């Protein structure tokens, strides 16, 4: 009898280890043989710890399970898929799960994330095998044709980046994975690294094989110790199985991979700052050009992509560019793992093709706010993303559609706020965060953010409000156009959107606001 208890850090944060122990203990007491598998999370995070029992018909789920529930679950006969108040039925038939289009997250939650046998048995390594039989230029062409764009937030076409690295002659090239997932409301990178690390390894190996890079680094944020353990364990397995090393799957090609830990600097999610950090320096943003693809890590051509971008690569090489491109809308092709977070009833991970609306995500999947109060606004795309009001909830998830209203898809994180949220406070926080995290290289960001906090404080206090609002707009304009990178350049988005849609929170009358924001 196999029972699954996730080892994902979200599940652990709400007691999955203790539940796994309690199940083992209760099984011992009752003399019932039970094999406990520590799987990744299915992404139905409001149900964590979600315990699954394997049956002939499929896996039956129970959650959220506490240690106190365990004896009762045994007594009710959960090992025989019996009904119970915590029962959710067949996990894969659950509406939250069944409606998803899981390409990137296809394996997450199925089994032991570290096992390379499990990975191969479920479609793993086919993409890499195909890539090894192709010319590098053809692999790059497949990525270009798939329409894959950078999932870290900037949405730059991945194939163009790879092609630059391929075309640039050098004695050494690198593949670097940006795993500095610092945006609030995002955890899809973490779930891949903890729940299916081999797909990231395979994606990076394909990038190396395609562009001629022989060494890869995963730059992982220090806030993710569980992901670090999972990645290092998976890399050891991959090396032992010849997926990594001097002779990738017997091809005679080399690809080595190493995890490097960041040190709590949000700015190191910016690609050039990340490279500085990998080189052992302060994470100061570099001027571009040159772009990392031509002169990146240690001055060498570098493929630099986000975790989800790399994790989307194996299926493209396995099923073909057309298969992937057939998902999505407009110029946003494929699927996006979307994270429903904050004040939401059913928070979790929903991978869908581009085109799904915010309203479907928030209400059909998310079930509305956790507090039961009306949803006031959502912030999409991390701390630099705009606050989106209810009037725009019919917006489809599409890079261009979001950009059209001054918002951004970013890394696909959605943070939900109910009507008790004070948008002026959140605008102030955006400036405060920018001040804390600014690398200090450019003035608009370094100084502008601190002045921004002061100006918003004066607006909140009602000191000379009209003039201060004008000043705030001017300051935001300077930051937007004068900053070196997205931190200073995009902090105005949450600030101005809060001001535009929720002026009353700043003590301003709604009707007298100028239309432009």
């Amino acid at each position, binding site marked *: 009898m196999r029972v699954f208890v996730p080892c994902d850090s979200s599940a652990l944060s709400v007691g999955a280890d203790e539940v796994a122990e309690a199940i083992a203990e209760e099984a011992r007491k009752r003399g019932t043989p039970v094999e406990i598998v520590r799987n990744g999370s299915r992404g139905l995070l409001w149900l964590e710890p979600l315990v699954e029992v394997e049956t002939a018909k499929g896996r039956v789920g129970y959650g959220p399970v506490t240690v106190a529930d365990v004896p009762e679950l045994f007594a009710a006969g959960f090992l025989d898929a019996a009904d119970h108040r915590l029962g959710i039925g067949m996990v894969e038939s659950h509406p939250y799960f069944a409606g998803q289009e899981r390409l990137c997250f296809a394996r997450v939650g199925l089994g032991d994330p570290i096992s390379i046998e499990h990975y191969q048995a479920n479609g793993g390594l086919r993409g890499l095998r195909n890539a090894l039989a192709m010319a590098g230029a053809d692999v790059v062409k497949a990525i270009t044709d798939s329409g894959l764009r950078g999932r870290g937030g900037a949405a730059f076409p991945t194939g163009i980046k790879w092609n630059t690295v391929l075309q640039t002659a050098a004695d050494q090239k690198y593949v670097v994975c940006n795993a500095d997932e610092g945006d609030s*409301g995002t955890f899809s990178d973490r779930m891949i690294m903890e729940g299916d690390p081999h797909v990231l390894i395979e994606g990076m190996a394909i990038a190396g094989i395609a562009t001629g890079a022989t060494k890869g680094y995963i730059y992982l944020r220090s*806030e993710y110790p*569980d992901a670090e353990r999972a990645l290092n364990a998976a890399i050891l397995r991959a090396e032992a199985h010849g997926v990594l090393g001097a002779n990738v799957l017997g091809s005679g090609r080399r690809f080595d991979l190493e995890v490097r*830990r960041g*040190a709590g600097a949000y700015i190191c999610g910016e690609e050039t700052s990340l490279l500085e950090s990998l*080189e*052992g320096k302060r994470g100061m943003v570099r001027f571009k050009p040159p772009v990392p693809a031509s002169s990146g890590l240690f001055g060498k051509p570098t493929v630099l992509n986000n975790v989800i971008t790399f994790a989307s690569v194996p299926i493209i090489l396995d099923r073909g560019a057309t298969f992937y491109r057939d998902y999505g809308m407009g110029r946003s092709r494929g699927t996006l793992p979307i994270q429903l*977070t904050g004040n939401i009833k059913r928070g979790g991970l929903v991978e869908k093709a581009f085109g799904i609306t915010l309203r479907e995500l928030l209400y059909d999947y998310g079930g509305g706010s956790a507090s039961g109060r009306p949803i006031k606004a959502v912030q999409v795309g991390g701390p630099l993303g705009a606050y989106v009001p209810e009037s725009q909830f019919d917006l489809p998830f599409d890079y261009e559609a979001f950009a059209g209203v001054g918002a951004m898809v970013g890394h696909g994180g959605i943070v939900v706020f109910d009507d008790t949220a004070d948008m002026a406070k959140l605008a102030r926080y955006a400036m405060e965060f920018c001040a*804390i995290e600014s690398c200090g290289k450019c003035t608009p960001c370094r100084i502008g953010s601190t002045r921004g906090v002061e100006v918003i404080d004066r607006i909140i206090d009602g000191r000379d409000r009209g003039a201060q609002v004008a000043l705030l707009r001017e300051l935001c304009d300077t930051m937007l156009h004068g900053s070196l990178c997205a931190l200073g350049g995009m902090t105005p988005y949450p600030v101005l959107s809060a001001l535009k849609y929720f002026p009353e929170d700043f003590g301003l009358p709604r009707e007298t606001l100028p239309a432009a924001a």
Partner: protein
Amino acid sequence: MPDDVNVAVEAAIDRHRSVAGGLLPLLHDIQDRLGYVPQSAIPDIARALNLSRAEVHGVVSFYHHFRQSPPGRHVLQVCRAEACQSMGAESLLNALRTQLGIDLHGTTADGAVTLEPVYCLGNCACAPSVMIDGRVRGRVSANAAAALVSELQGA
């Protein structure tokens, strides 16, 4: 330098001096062992990596993760990012400040607990979150937080 500090620093230097871009791994190695990066280690690190002391100090002080003084026996990090705010992180933080009698970056007088802010633990669907000695806890209610702190202060 005291002996244990000396040993940890020299061992970390030996392990990382020839690693490309090895300064961050070296500093992590020291902090993982000692809980902080002692000022007294900086000249040795600089010499081993052929950097100036200013460059090493610049790196140590740039990153929020690196501490320049020893923390308390337990480190309690409270997430202040938006997702946790939407679920009451600010009032949670204020309650913890009051209970511990310290502000952010402070350590209780008995040396039991250091309180630090953190900006996202990647647990945003189970907010609000805190991290205690490297372990994330989610859905932390005010009562649960108070109980956790009492436990830390007793331990």
